[in-house]
């Protein structure tokens, strides 16, 4: 049949590397650890317990609430970044990513001091805090390419701003919003530190319970039962997401220069809301900076001076600066790997859809690539322990595993940021290019890459930031002399002594600055890619 569907073979070839990676570093380990659990007793008892279903309910409920908050807060910021040409947008574009790199333990502590009672509201707000950037940046990526003339036409025909947004803009953005929302949902459903810290032990989710049963109790049957539920829940959410994404029309894409302008009239209200959201995001961040500067005797820079050393009485084996360098190295590896895998997967998915392959196949592949975001890092990590020794070089104890594990999380993000743009490219443009004699590769180079270039760089920045902040795999796998900043912060905050504490918060500030610098650098690359179309 392949000969009747040009491009199908190519698409499947492109899908091979990311699929192979997924099978070896995700499906195999997870299946092995769940299988080990299923061999024991107690799976049925856990599934039948009312507590378990309460856990599922709370997990889904808090994640849905946090996702809703993140979408509502993220959209005005997306508008600000995509549709306006205000000064300071560059800073905001970078600043909204800062929450992503901060270790949950310090953000949890900051939220705890801002909302002393903790509880469900604090959990939802903290989860949303981490994820506003996902919505703001990925929706802005599409929004900035949406042709403004359809909106202008609606306005000329007498539609109100709200009506125009609801009937013209929103339908175009819906796939991007759906994409972002499903990522946010998965992040929130599997968030771990936030629930433990702000729930004060009274609230638990599937994720925290899987952690306790696997890591502390070694109750593998119980953990396997909960992992199966987690996979099922994630799968359900992803299928719903894939189905909503399928119903979409191609939007007319434009270069950015002509879509961003100074806001007019009622748009200022949206801009004001966006600034308010950014200000709220900055509150916990400012709290961390304040802590890095406060000492018993007032204000001081002791924590920052200590970054040059290895903590109070040498709590660390690396200095703060070395840790920053380690972070950059590990994140670079992970991002490059994830970009290659993510681009291949996106190209495969979009080409498959264009070849009129069965939509079910496309959705199934898409869902499979997303699964690593929704499955517990503990399940994956313990799965590695019992499988990866079969590979040459015993990756279980190799530093190479850090970027591999990080890429597992970053790849789906790259896919989610690229795919909406690639899919909304008007096929007639490509057909016209082909008619004019362009080879398939040339069509990609002239049409798809310029239009998706901005999203590709946004995805790179995003992936880099996620890898910079990644803590779970890194803390398990990093060796003492290659500790990254989040690992160092976690170690410092777990020790008594004022200087260790100040240094932990100073390291947070350093991590934020590194993040903003890296994002700003990647943003500069973006400028070069705009305006050629």
């Amino acid at each position, binding site marked *: 049949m392949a000969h009747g569907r040009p491009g199908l073979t190519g698409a499947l070839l492109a899908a091979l590397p990311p699929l192979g990676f997924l099978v070896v570093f995700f499906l195999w380990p997870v299946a092995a650890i769940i299988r080990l659990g299923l061999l024991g007793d107690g799976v049925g008892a856990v599934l039948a317990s009312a507590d378990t279903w309460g856990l599922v309910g709370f997990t889904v409920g808090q994640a849905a609430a946090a996702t809703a908050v993140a979408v509502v807060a993220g959209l005005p910021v997306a508008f600000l970044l995509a549709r306006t040409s205000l000064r300071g947008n560059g800073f905001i574009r970078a600043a909204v990513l800062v929450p992503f790199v901060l270790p949950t333990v310090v953000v949890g502590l900051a939220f705890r001091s801002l909302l002393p009672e903790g509880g469900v509201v604090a959990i939802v707000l903290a989860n949303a805090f981490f994820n506003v950037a996902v919505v703001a940046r990925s929706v802005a990526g599409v929004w900035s390419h949406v042709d403004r003339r359809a909106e202008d036409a609606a306005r000329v025909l007498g539609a109100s701003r709200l009506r125009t947004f609801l009937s013209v803009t929103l339908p175009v953005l819906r796939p991007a919003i759906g994409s972002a929302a499903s990522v946010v949902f998965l992040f929130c459903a599997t968030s771990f530190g936030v629930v433990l810290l702000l729930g004060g032990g009274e609230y638990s989710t599937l994720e925290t319970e899987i952690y*306790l049963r696997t890591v502390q109790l070694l109750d593998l049957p119980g953990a396997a039962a909960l992992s199966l539920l987690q996979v099922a829940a994630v799968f359900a959410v992803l299928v719903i997401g894939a189905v909503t994404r399928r119903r979409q029309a191609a939007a007319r894409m434009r270069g950015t220069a002509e879509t961003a302008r100074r806001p007019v009239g009622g748009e200022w209200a949206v801009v004001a809301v966006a600034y308010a959201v950014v200000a709220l995001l900055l509150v916990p961040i400012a709290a961390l900076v304040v802590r890095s500067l406060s000492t018993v005797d007032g204000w001081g820079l002791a924590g920052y001076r200590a970054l040059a050393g290895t903590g109070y009485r040498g709590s660390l084996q690396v200095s703060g600066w070395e840790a920053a360098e380690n972070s950059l190295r590990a994140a670079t590896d992970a991002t490059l790997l994830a970009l290659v895998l993510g681009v291949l997967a996106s190209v495969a998915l979009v080409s498959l859809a264009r070849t009129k392959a069965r939509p079910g196949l496309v959705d199934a592949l898409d869902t499979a690539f997303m699964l690593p975001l929704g499955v517990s890092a503990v399940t994956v990590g313990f799965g590695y322990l019992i499988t990866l020794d079969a590979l040459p070089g015993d990756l279980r104890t190799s530093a190479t595993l850090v970027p591999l594990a990080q890429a597992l999380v970053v790849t789906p993000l790259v896919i989610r940021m690229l795919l909406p743009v690639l899919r909304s490219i008007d096929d007639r443009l490509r057909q016209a290019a082909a008619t004019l004699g362009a080879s398939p590769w040339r069509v990609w180079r002239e049409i798809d890459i310029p239009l998706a270039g901005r999203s590709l760089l946004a995805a790179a920045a995003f992936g880099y930031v996620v890898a910079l902040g990644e803590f779970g795999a890194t803390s398990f796998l990093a060796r003492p002399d290659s500790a990254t900043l989040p690992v160092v912060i*976690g170690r410092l905050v777990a020790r008594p002594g004022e200087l260790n504490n100040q240094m932990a918060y100073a390291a947070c500030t350093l991590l934020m600055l590194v993040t903003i610098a890296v994002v700003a650098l990647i943003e500069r690359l973006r400028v070069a890619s705009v305006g050629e179309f």
Partner: protein
Amino acid sequence: MRRIAILAGAAVLAAGCSTGGSGGGSGEAKTGERTVVLVTHDSFDADAAVLEKFRADTGIKIDVRKSGDAGALTNQLVLTKGAPLGDAAFGVDTTFASRALDEGVFAEYRSPEADKGPQRYSVDDKNRLSAVDVGDVCVNVDPAALTAKNLPVPASFEDLADAKYKDLLVVEDPATSSPGLAFVLGTVAHYGNQGWVNYWQRLKANGVKVVSGWEEAYTQEFSGSSGKGPRPIVVSYASSPSAEIGDDGKPRTQALLDTCFRQVEYAGVLNGAKNTDDARKVVDFLLSEPFQKQVPEKMYVYPAREGVALPDAWQKAAPLPQSPATLAAGDIQANRERWITQWRTAVRG
């Protein structure tokens, strides 16, 4: 084309600062050198000079692999006993020793150094685990804050349930925190199987605050740390006051030595180790005077070896508790989950 050139340039730059480009550092073994992989927990730390001296003397490089906390470490060792992650392990503690022994993770080895003190903490008649250090979990107080409230410094478990000290104590959840669990075990040892639940009901009535981890309890809720929180009484370690010494050289906090529970950390040679002979030498090294001398400063614990002097700050602020509560490792293993459930019902219910 300019765009592609820029991207390619960025990729080359990025590759230059990647992990792959950083080979040949101190992590590389010299030719002919033997390596022992020491699997341990996140809190492991050692003086680089001491490790270097061992390497120079024996030709053995210790490759440290950290694997979460003591519980995570133990369970990873159990899960990988067929294909061990390394040659020796350090950090399995009293709370988890039974599980590791029952599962046959460790090989028999009695270090010649064990007689010099570590043997006092033996958990196993087959000598599979050697005690390396002792870290007691004790209630810590902020005397200045108590004085400001016109309250004397409490001394015992009983005092903490006294109405005078209402709403002043913060503890960690035993399900999610290792010191939290140790403190609960201390109350089990002190009040016995019948009385300890009742004691926790009294603590609850007296306004005990429960948080999920040590970081929050100590650095955020406790008034004696840099976080300057609201509560002057916290569950922490006997060693914590050594890190809270003011400019006047006096400790700002104090451990209540009658509320301590003893946690011992062990090391051993892993069954199936690739390099058993050298792994034994590493266990000897962990028990040796040079390593034992630096465990207080590096890991905030007390040496298991006898006659190793504590650092000055410790002698003043953090002496080793003389009569801490203890429980047999087997008892803990058999009852841990039930005790946590009972605690939950009493305190959360």
